[in-house]
């Protein structure tokens, strides 16, 4: 407890950093749930593929050595574009192959759920077996650096050195931490405005609230669902870039734990609710840090889920718990 008070600022800031990543990934779960009332279990892998896009594009560009955050800004901007394209693309693939036919045929939810879980394994293992896949295609020689040792950790070729920039309490906040928190908040704001103010956003909300009435208005639900997956993928791509700035390493299996946490964050905030995803993510990140501080780091997962259960006991629909469409100010 004394430790928590003495290091409150640091634990809070670093918790917010991780929470920001949770929140951005949680958006993908919450958007798809809002529109289809289905949990997209493959979303964790959409994020994972984004982290690899960051590694690959920087390898391709020949980035190396160490750099300050500002010095790597050009690389990171390109990496962001690559990650967004990759995650967005993978999300569309998931929608196309794991969802569309089943949704159109009104398949029972559990069947679609299984299909999504299957897609998640496939995506993860494609990454984990990419050397063999490249081999089948006869591309192993060409792709060498990108596909070798697929089950080992892949690290960012350029190492980003965080610099202290801002004193909060007794903690010097690093530039990378500031960047991550601010970027996540900006993305949340942009998305919120997009959903509330644009015609596309209105269509997403309409389909979320009443798909049949929406199609009577001329909404093309296939397009709306596709757009929803795409937005979730884009957010996961941003999250993947921020994650790589912070952690700097990824693996074919990093999606699972992060996905479970992000999903928890979405449920905590109220699944289907965009602002709930943000709130849930940030609270989860901070709570994990506080609990690790007080009880020991081996308690962080326990804490996360105890917190979830407690919140759901009091508020079964989550902290802000309303559906996507109702989630307007």
């Amino acid at each position: 407890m004394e430790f928590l008070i003495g290091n409150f600022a640091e634990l809070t800031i670093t918790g917010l950093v991780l929470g920001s990543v949770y929140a951005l990934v949680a958006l993908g779960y919450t958007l798809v749930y809002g529109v289809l009332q289905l949990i997209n279990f493959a979303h964790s892998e959409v994020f994972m593929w984004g982290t690899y896009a960051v590694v690959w594009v920087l390898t391709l560009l020949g980035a190396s050595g160490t750099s300050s955050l500002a010095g790597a800004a050009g690389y990171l901007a390109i990496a962001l574009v690559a990650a967004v394209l990759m995650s967005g693309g993978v999300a569309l693939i998931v929608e196309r192959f794991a969802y569309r036919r089943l949704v159109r045929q009104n398949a029972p939810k559990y069947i679609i759920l299984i299909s999504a879980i299957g897609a998640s394994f496939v995506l993860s293992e494609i990454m984990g077996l990419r050397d063999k896949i490249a081999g089948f295609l006869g591309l192993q020689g060409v792709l060498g650096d990108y596909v070798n040792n697929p089950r080992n950790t892949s690290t960012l070729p350029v190492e980003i050195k965080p610099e202290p920039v801002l004193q909060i309490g007794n903690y010097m906040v690093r530039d990378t931490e500031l960047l991550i928190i601010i970027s996540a908040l900006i993305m949340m704001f942009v998305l919120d405005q997009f959903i509330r103010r644009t015609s596309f956003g209105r269509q997403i909300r309409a389909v979320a609230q009443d798909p049949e009435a929406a199609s009577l208005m001329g909404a093309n639900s296939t397009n709306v669902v596709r757009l929803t997956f795409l937005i979730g993928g884009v957010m996961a791509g941003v999250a993947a870039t921020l994650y790589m700035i912070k952690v700097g390493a990824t693996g074919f299996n990093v999606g699972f734990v992060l996905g479970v946490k992000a999903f928890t964050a979405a449920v905590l905030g109220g699944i289907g609710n965009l602002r709930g995803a943000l709130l849930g993510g940030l609270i989860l990140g901070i709570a994990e840090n506080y609990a690790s501080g007080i009880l020991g780091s081996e308690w962080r997962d326990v804490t996360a889920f105890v917190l979830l259960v407690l919140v759901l006991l009091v508020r079964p629909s989550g902290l802000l718990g309303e559906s996507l469409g109702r989630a307007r100010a």
Partner: protein
Amino acid sequence: MRAIKASQLLVVGVASALVLSACAAPADTTEGGSGSTESFSIAYQGPLTGADAKYGEYAKAGIEIALADYAAAYPDGPTVTAIYSDSQGDPAQAPALAADLINNADVLGVVGPAFSGETEATEPAYSEAGLVTVSPSATRVSLSEQGWSTFFRVVANDGAQAPAAAKLLTDVVGAKTVFVIDDASAYGVGLGDGIKDALGDKVIGSDSVEKGSTTDFSATVTKVTASGAEAVYYAGYATDAGLIQKQLTAAGFEGTYASGDGSLESTFIETAGEASEGAYLTAAAGAAGDDFVAKWDALTVSDKGSIGVYSTEAYDAAWVILSGIGEGNTTREDVLAWVAGYDAEGITKHIKFADNGEIDGAGGVYYYLVKDGDFEAPVAID
């Protein structure tokens, strides 16, 4: 007993068949007589995929060299092949794989299990089946205290590593205060606790992180920096060890970072990046000699792994079993007896086992310093 005699007869029979066929058709000698049952397997149980896959790769190098040496030393012996069983080092996955090996009558001995956790999960079954296991790398102290008749290891346990690591931190590094982190695995807790015991009140803080459950260690990092410790010892595996060191350095930690044999592989350096410069890694394993490297270079098999920590121990473990088979022990019972009675020079140390399966007369513990992005040659801690 009758079965054994029958198989021994068979050995003689097939051996003569081999000789005959060798005379008749020299080109066929390497294949042995067709229809021969004189072909056995040794198995490896450890991680070939997953975060710790490097250990499997390193062990594979040792086993493949041992197989080549076996073929050269016992040209008339039974054909022996290796089965690589990928447990991912996971105690939850290992039992089913062990059961497969036990049910495979061709398997006469196991090199492994690689990790302490999977050893705890599978050794009771091996022991019951009488299938001998010789681990190159499972170092948790308590493993030899369970009364498993089939458990052997060619490596010193953490009981030797922990005091040596403590000595490294105090004498070589010169740290007055140490923060100890373990990864809540069977191996990490054992090693971490051993170091805490050896360091006594020099330990000013400790934390336990869940292996594989996160890549963000900010709370742990805060604890370390808040404690003001001069050195950190992480008892766990390479990926997490690298991430923790990187995040410590990013948070301004300037003390010495050390970890154990679990982190002694290139993934650690790749993950930590520049932060890994000056890190110490301890292991009850020395370097591979030039001979060993030359033999590895000469291997012609397509997948021969790579040389790293515990490659030489894997060689010794494999050789203990293979030489037994070469000397005519072709039942599990005989191989087990052979291993228990083994007394010969290995490439890492003299190999002779105590009754509990520990190597008699512990081998040395070494430290490896990270410099210029690579591990320097090991230095003995004494």
